[in-house]
């Protein structure tokens, strides 16, 4: 029996990559920069950001849908990735401006004078002008790129090591991850955290060295980069879950104790998947925030990570394309409703304004999906593939809290 290549065993990977390529090509042809101009630059940015959200949803699916760890803190890693790239963007951009204005002075400024001026520019809003120690590498793109994966990875490693070693599971772990993201957000809100407090980092859409390139072009480049990152992240994730490692992960999700008695060091597996997905989330964040233009601590509020779980649940957990569908669908619909584009519904006695009511609609759909369609939107694919549910007489696929329910599984 010859072992077939990954894509032959999982045709969904090829279909996904083809659809993603088609989408990217379509957007390119309709963009202002390279096509007919049907899509506005701001909408191209929305689409590019959506691709980043899809990538972090894939990471969430790995950690929750496959390994059964309901982490409600992955948006903290996403935000950290954004902060890390934001530091370089802001530093270099400010340096360009400062150096430009100082060049006209009679005496050429010294290197130290420029750095001081950058500090005054960046930290003026929080009443400081000194560079905190965490900005030590802000002048090096390469080092900040390393930090994009290293900082979320290290935080996940330390947090995960402490949590998994003490065998914290289920709801307790979810609460701990919420506490982690809340603590991080509160810390960053402080002015002396060194990352400009609640002002956050701004002007990130201006890429240093590319100031002459119009935003319509830059937005397309970021969309391509986001699509490439999503494709790579998707293939990497599919590869991780395809082999025995995936078997062990799903085993941990459904019946952790049994995996342990087979001799697998469960904690190491959890720690590894937690850390790897945190790094993927960091990369997604680093691509997201230059498109958003601004990052502030509100981005990593606990609710953001809960949204992430809602996307994956609505898309269908335990299948990578489900996470992508869920993130894309819900975040696009969300920006439609909250962007004021959705027409208000006039009931005569009351007008439903979607900007206010969207969250309630989302909550109701989440409850409805959980109860009536546990396989989510991705479950529609099973209608075509004619996959059936196993007959387990209502029992879950394993005794653990994270185990798939009968209705979520396919034969």
């Amino acid at each position: 029996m010859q072992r077939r290549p990954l894509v032959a065993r999982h045709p969904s990977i090829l279909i996904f990559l083809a659809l993603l390529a088609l989408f990217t090509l379509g957007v390119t042809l309709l963009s202002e920069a390279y096509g007919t101009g049907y899509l506005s630059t701001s909408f191209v940015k929305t689409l590019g950001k959506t691709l980043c959200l899809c990538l972090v949803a894939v990471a969430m699916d790995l950690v929750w849908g496959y390994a059964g760890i309901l982490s409600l803190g992955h948006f903290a890693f996403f935000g950290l990735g954004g902060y890390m790239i934001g530091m370089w963007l802001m530093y270099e951009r400010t340096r360009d401006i400062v150096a430009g204005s100082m060049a006209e002075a009679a005496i050429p400024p010294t290197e130290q004078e420029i750095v001081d001026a950058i500090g005054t520019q960046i930290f003026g809003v929080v009443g400081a002008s000194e560079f905190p120690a965490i900005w030590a590498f802000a002048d090096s793109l390469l080092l900040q790129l390393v930090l994009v994966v290293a900082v979320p990875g290290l935080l996940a490693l330390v947090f995960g090591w402490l949590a998994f070693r003490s065998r914290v599971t289920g709801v307790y772990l979810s609460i701990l991850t919420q506490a982690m993201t809340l603590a991080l957000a509160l810390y960053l809100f402080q002015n002396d955290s060194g990352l400009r407090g609640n002002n956050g980092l701004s002007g990130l859409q201006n890429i240093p060295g590319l100031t002459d390139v119009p935003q319509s072009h830059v937005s397309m480049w970021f969309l391509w980069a986001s699509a490439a990152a999503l494709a790579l992240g998707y293939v990497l994730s599919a590869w991780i879950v395809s082999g025995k490692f995936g078997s062990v992960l799903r085993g941990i999700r459904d019946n952790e104790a049994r995996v342990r008695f087979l001799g697998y060091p469960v904690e190491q597996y959890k720690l590894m998947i937690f850390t790897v997905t945190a790094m993927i989330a960091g990369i997604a964040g680093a691509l997201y925030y230059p498109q958003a233009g601004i990052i502030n601590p509100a981005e990593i509020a606990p609710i953001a990570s809960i949204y992430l779980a809602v996307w994956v649940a609505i898309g269908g957990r335990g299948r990578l394309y489900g996470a992508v569908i869920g993130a894309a669908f819900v975040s696009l619909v969300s920006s439609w409703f909250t962007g004021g584009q959705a027409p208000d519904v006039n009931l005569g006695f009351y007008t439903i304004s979607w900007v206010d009511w969207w969250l309630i609609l989302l909550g109701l759909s989440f409850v409805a999906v959980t109860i009536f369609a546990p396989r989510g939107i991705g479950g529609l694919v099973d209608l075509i593939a004619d996959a059936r549910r196993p007959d387990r007489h209502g029992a879950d696929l394993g005794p653990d809290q994270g185990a798939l329910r009968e209705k979520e599984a396919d034969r």
Partner: protein
Amino acid sequence: MSTLLEVSGVSVTFDGFRAINNLSFNIGPAELRAIIGPNGAGKTTFMDIVTGKTKPDEGRVLWGEKNVSLLKMSEAQIAQAGIGRKFQRPTVFEDQSVEDNLLMALARPRGPLSVLFWRASQKALSRVRELAEEIGLADQLSRKSGELSHGQKQWLEIGMLLAQEPKLLLVDEPAAGMTPEEREHTTSLLVEAAKTRAVVVVEHDMEFVRRLNCKVTVLHEGSVLAEGKLDHVTANQKVIDVYLGR
């Protein structure tokens, strides 16, 4: 005869209840042993202690020729040292195929990195096929194990245990809920397995124990009440009083 597992003077208390009371137990490297006893006699707790799930308050649990203490090891380390366990209710990974279940159990490196890069070799696949034939599931390899019948799941779990190549097999009520034919198959699987390794079977069903035809240990209130041939222990007055007489 040398000992593979030596449990001596072990006690464990849960909230004031003495589940295991000064228990001592030995088994050799290729031996079949049945443990019987009424409910609450400490049979499952005994297995929990040996596999590292429960830490005893006092006593020693020594393993192998080098007499390593199992008390300092984690469940995973104990399993890697060569102790396999089958639970009372069949616990297989229901979401995964019979083949994946067996592949996961195969004795191979268990670390995350080596597993990540591990791909099934020809040898591993043929070993899985061989095991599947032994447990009578050769035509079910690609089926999801959640669909198997209760008896088939029990065999799959025994197959997974054999795949682990353990030196000691702990089997909790293997015949529970099985048809008479299935019981017979299970008996022969266990007897066969005990030729090359130690097998401890916890069982309620006297008829099943009789068919295993091996030395029997009777537990009562957390310690050993009697030990010997089945006919010998069933003739013991204390055993009749606490167990058989009911």
